[in-house]
């Protein structure tokens, strides 16, 4: 027995080089990453030209100064624009945007969750049909659809007419916070429903049965099992609704009035009518920061549960 256990190299010959020599492995990895770069190049170029460069321009402009004629002067770097973010008007508009965005997110969640749950528990055929219904609005432009709401909510629109016909006092619907939040919910509800659907669809419903078996009533089973396990979808959906609502431009512009200005419109007005590009740029950077923080919160909390 002992002799057969002796290493083969004892007979004087060198063993052949192992196929897994480290040098070869590193070379293969390098070649692999070169190929990866080549495949990623077009989108990388696209992102640099159309995203990184404009963002850098806005970033640089936010430190510029405004000449008396409204021209942006670069070179005389200043933090003035950022200091003006504390202006009461800016704070009021920010608070309003935040409020509308949070309310929109909450309504989307309350409306979207039961629908997503219903969707996820249907047969494959019904599910497909309902998913198409959720996505149909995307086939036409948001601007066009928002104008449709303007007609619907206007003083000649069916809602106001119906109130009149019933002899009730008519109310102003258009150009109110109600109209804006309605428009935002309408526009962004699918962004809430889809991630919720994905999360609930993945849920193992025998867990709900287990909870019921362990003396939980329907509501307790939902609260203790379904809800916590669908949380990644709740977080993803909320962020996908909150971010575009916070920076919304089209909806408040068309459905809102002068007293419901949101940040998006305010930024645009700084660039176009007020001709104050540095301040507009500083505002944009501030909005970007808020969205970035929200996204980080999402990845932190979502990542742990997925």
């Amino acid at each position, binding site marked *: 027995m002992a002799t057969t256990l002796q290493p083969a190299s004892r007979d004087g010959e060198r063993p052949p080089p192992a196929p897994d020599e480290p040098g070869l492995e590193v070379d293969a990895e390098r070649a692999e990453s070169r190929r990866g770069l080549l495949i990623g190049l077009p989108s990388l170029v696209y992102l640099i030209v159309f995203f990184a460069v404009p963002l850098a321009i806005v970033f640089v402009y936010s430190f510029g100064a405004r000449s008396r004629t409204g021209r942006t002067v670069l070179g005389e770097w200043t933090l003035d624009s950022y200091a003006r973010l504390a202006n009461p008007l800016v704070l009021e508009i920010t608070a309003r945007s935040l409020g509308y965005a949070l309310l929109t997110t909450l309504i989307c969640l309350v409306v979207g969750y039961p629908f997503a749950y219903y969707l996820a528990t249907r047969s494959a055929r019904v599910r497909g049909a309902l998913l198409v219904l959720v996505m149909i609005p995307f086939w036409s432009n948001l601007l066009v659809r928002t104008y449709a709401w303007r007609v619907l909510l206007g003083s000649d629109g069916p809602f106001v007419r119906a109130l009149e016909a019933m002899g009730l006092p008519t109310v102003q619907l258009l150009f109110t916070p109600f109209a804006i939040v309605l428009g935002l919910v309408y526009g962004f509800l699918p962004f809430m429903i889809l991630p919720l659907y994905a999360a609930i669809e993945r849920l*193992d419903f*025998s*867990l709900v*049965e*287990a*909870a*019921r*078996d*362990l*003396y*939980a*009533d*329907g509501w*307790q089973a939902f609260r*203790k*099992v379904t809800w*916590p*396990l669908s949380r990644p979808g709740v977080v993803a959906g909320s962020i996908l609704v909150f971010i575009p609502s916070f920076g919304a431009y089209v909806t408040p512009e068309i459905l809102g009035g002068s007293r419901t200005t949101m940040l998006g419109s305010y930024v645009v007005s700084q660039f176009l009518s007020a001709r104050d590009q540095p301040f507009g740029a500083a505002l944009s950077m501030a909005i970007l920061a808020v969205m970035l923080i929200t996204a980080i919160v999402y990845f932190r909390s979502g990542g742990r*549960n997925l």
Partner: protein
Amino acid sequence: MGEVSLGDTAGTAHPTVAPAGTPAVSIDGVTKRFPGPKGGEAVTAVDRLSLDIVDGEFFSLLGPSGCGKTTTLRMIGGFEYPTSGSIRIFGDEVGLLPPNRRPVNTVFQSYALFPHMTVERNIAFGLQMQDVADDEVRRRVAEVIELVQLGGRETRKPRQLSGGQQQRVALARALVNHPKVLLLDEPLGALDLKLRQAMQLELKQLQERVGITFIYVTHDQEEALTMSDRIAVMDEGVMLQVGAPEEIYDRPRTRFVADFIGDTNLMTATVVDGRSVEISDGTVLRVANDRDVGTDVTVAVRPEKLGLRRPDGERDTSLDAVQGRVDRVTFLGNAIAYEVTALAGDPPVRLRVRQGNAPGVEHFAAGEEVRVRWVPPSATVLED
């Protein structure tokens, strides 16, 4: 495992006292129909099932997939409601009660452990839902963790446990509630063979110690035979036979039961009188039956009940015997399997014989003439 017992039922949600001798579960004429696929006919999953399960027994529902055993279990658990018939647990009608209002708990096939909760919180779940006081919950969770030997893993999440440990958590989570009946849906199906065999023994011992009625669903006949006090064999929604494992194995009533449980030889025969039948080679076998003279019947006999002898040896008249020739010999290690065809008869009787590989047992080769013989009560006449 220590002197742990679940006999103390203080604090359970179901203090009903049933008169002695009341079945733990009584199923009476239960039918379950599911709506068929679009436009199709309704599917009958369980067909007029009547069954009494005795308090404290280990009862198995055995059958192939789709035979209605899981549907039956789910109706007892409250996850399906019977289309008609009644289900009583210790005398109380539960047919239409939701699961949380039944004094039973379930160990699910895939365990269904809550992935977002620790072992401890999984086990405590049922007690907390019943509003049991915190220190009582702690005491009972600790007790059951000791019972299933999960000490030291209280704060792990289910995905950090092995399959066997998850299985124990699932058991503990059900047992901590001191259910009157524990329902188990193929709980060992996901485990590998060695672990499954170890868990079979452990489950049986656990059941004896806690004294709770177990209703166990399985498609594995060996598992059912090993663990059960009684077995009900089901096929296509119908219960074919119920009885002790020995009874089911030795006295199968139908072809399906004989075939599904273990290996069996089936012989076509004609009834001679109430105590004997004749097979195709003219041999008369001593098999009790209640059929009319002249009817064709099927006789079943297990391969391991058969013995082989040289054809020229002295005949033992207390045994039934068939003269045949060995077609094939297969060495199995612990046994030797022979395939033997009768010398006469059309079609000839074919028998599989299984002899233990013990010292002194004579071996035969293919082509040799043999006498296959058995003790008459080994054979039984099937109903179909």
